[in-house]
């Protein structure tokens, strides 16, 4: 099989297991994003694929070849680091070409390849500068160039954009996406930023505490989270959670939190099976609907972000966030009526946190 495959990979530091029995298949040409909170083991996993950290158990296969015991440079991979890790005393040109030179490539050929990469990443005018003379975004581009020039079959990125400011991050994101479409190589990309995961990935792996929570397309991870951890980690502002149970309110089904009943619309039919059992309802801010049929709630705070507006509401004993358009005016302390789009909500088992209804 082409691509990358991890079989029962385990990692322990000084006896402390930080990762156990990881199994993962990354198809050729995938843009796989490893998403998870700080310390969950993303970098460790990436480093094991790169060969920078030895595995404690299991095996790693790249393009069908078992690379578990190989050195990084024998694995046909390239890597880009958050801190760029450019060689500070070399010019951009030498930074990019140095790996080729070490492989004994001819000078002329190196020149050619560096020029091509420079062209592709639009850093040709910077080729003779030192890294310290570049802005953060330019440095990141050079770091990518250094990976590109080697033409490996797998690219590994460890939070490559997190040192950049918001604007630049957005631009670089688009560039990376285009680059992937153009080269068609496998990419494994680590981030803790869910927007990056959503926009870049063809497949997202959500990690928590060294174990895989969900492997799916970005859309599914967002819309059908496998469990409460994934649901709360992905999405900003975060998903609203309310404990309670589904009950009938006349013909309608409502969600009874014990201190109030939240009306639901567009309720899918299969949900009726769950009526009465205790559960947690999860609803994203954009799936809370301001509607006169809704439950009455008190506005705590309105956060206009420009295109949208997030409103914190006190309702049925919880604090919830709902999204609205920027025009509507919410005064703190005033009243608003709110309901939940039942077609888009997620229901979780309160004990295990697993999503109810096959996601």
């Amino acid at each position: 099989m082409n691509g990358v495959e991890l079989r029962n990979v385990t990692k322990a530091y000084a006896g402390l297991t930080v990762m156990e029995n990881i199994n993962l298949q990354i198809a050729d040409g995938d843009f796989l994003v490893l998403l998870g909170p700080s310390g969950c083991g993303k970098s460790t996993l990436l480093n094991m694929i790169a060969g920078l950290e030895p595995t404690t158990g299991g095996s790693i296969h790249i393009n069908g070849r078992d690379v578990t015991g190989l050195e990084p440079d024998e694995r046909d991979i390239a890597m880009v680091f958050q801190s760029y890790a450019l060689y500070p005393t070399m010019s951009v040109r030498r930074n990019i070409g140095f790996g080729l030179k070490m492989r004994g490539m001819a000078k002329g050929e190196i020149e050619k390849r560096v020029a091509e990469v420079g062209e592709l990443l639009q850093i040709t005018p910077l080729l003779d500068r030192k890294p310290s003379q570049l802005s953060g975004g330019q440095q990141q581009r050079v770091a990518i160039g250094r990976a590109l020039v080697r033409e490996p079959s797998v690219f590994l990125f460890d939070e490559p954009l997190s040192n950049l400011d918001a604007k630049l991050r957005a631009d670089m994101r688009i560039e990376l996406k285009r680059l992937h479409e153009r080269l068609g190589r496998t990419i494994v990309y680590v981030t803790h930023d869910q927007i990056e995961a959503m926009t870049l990935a063809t497949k997202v792996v959500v990690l928590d505490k060294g174990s895989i929570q969900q492997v799916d397309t970005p859309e599914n991870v967002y819309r059908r989270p496998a469990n409460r951890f994934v649901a709360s980690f992905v999405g900003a502002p975060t998903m609203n959670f309310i404990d309670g149970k589904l009950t009938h309110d006349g013909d309608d089904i409502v969600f009874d939190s014990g201190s109030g009943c939240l009306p639901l619309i567009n309720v899918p039919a299969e949900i009726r099976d769950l009526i009465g059992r205790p559960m947690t309802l999860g609803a994203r801010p954009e799936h809370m609907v301001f509607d006169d049929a809704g439950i009455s709630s008190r506005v705590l705070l309105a956060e206009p972000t420009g295109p949208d507006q997030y409103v914190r509401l006190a309702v049925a004993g919880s604090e919830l966030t709902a999204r609205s358009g920027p025009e509507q005016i919410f005064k703190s302390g005033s009243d608003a009526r709110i309901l939940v789009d039942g077609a888009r909500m997620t229901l979780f088992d309160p004990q295990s946190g697993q999503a109810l209804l096959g996601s």
Partner: protein
Amino acid sequence: MPDPAQDVLHYSATPQDAHQKGRRRWRPQWTARMALIPAMAITIFCFYGFIIWTFVISLTRSRLLPVYKFTGFDQYGRLFANERWWTAMQNLAIHGFLFIGGCIVFGYLLAILIDRGVKAEGLFRTVFMLPLSMSFIVTGVIWQWVMNPGLGLQEAVRALGWAGFEFNWIVRPDRSIYTLAIAGIWQQVGLCMALFLAGLRNIDPNIWKAARVDGIPVWRVYLHIITPMMRTVFFTVFILMSAIVMKAFDLVVALTGGGPGFSSDLPARFVVDHILNRQELGLGAAGAFVLLCTVIAVIAPYIYFELQKERSGRGH
């Protein structure tokens, strides 16, 4: 628009500032200036005052005690006609090169070896730094023993059966200067090692990872990537070791006594010998002044570098 008087009124009325009664408080900046006075006094009176004094004395014919009968630049004439002085200056160059170079090379190598992740790191580090605790006099005495051809290493190796073994530099006028470097390096290599090790530890570990992914052999990483990054450390080591070379006195006295002949003399010893033993204060002062000028020539780039570094560091 509040007028200034009103400002003051308002000011003293503010509760937090009531105790100031409208007067400006004693500024911490002034305290900072006061705190510099002792060091400033030492710098001006001791360092520069003494340098000037030395220069003045070098223009007199003082012998045992300072006398202020001026003879122009006669002492400099005598100094430059003195073969021993030139030998000493030449030795300074040789010793400086070997000692500083040796400390840098060996200190760096040891630091690299330790940095490769050895087990008993603490033990090795401590061992390498042990000689630092010895004074130069002690260092000289020990090495005089070890290098003495009749008592030390040469004899010991010969006793083991290698009859032709020669290690008699300390008694050879053309080699004795090298023995100073050996003993000096032995003593200071630990400090250099510690400095380099600290520098190596400050390097972003991702650089190492990037180099491994690039498939660069370890020695090349050190040569092409790490070493250039350690420029500041090299400079620090260079300056610290230069200060030692310029002041080198005790070590020469204890190790070779400047001999054979005056083949291993150094300017600092020349100067001290003339001032304290030869009662040639004027000549010694002239030598000292020339030595100081050499020093300034060496550290001026350092000072420039310091200021430059900080100015360029501002933007970040």
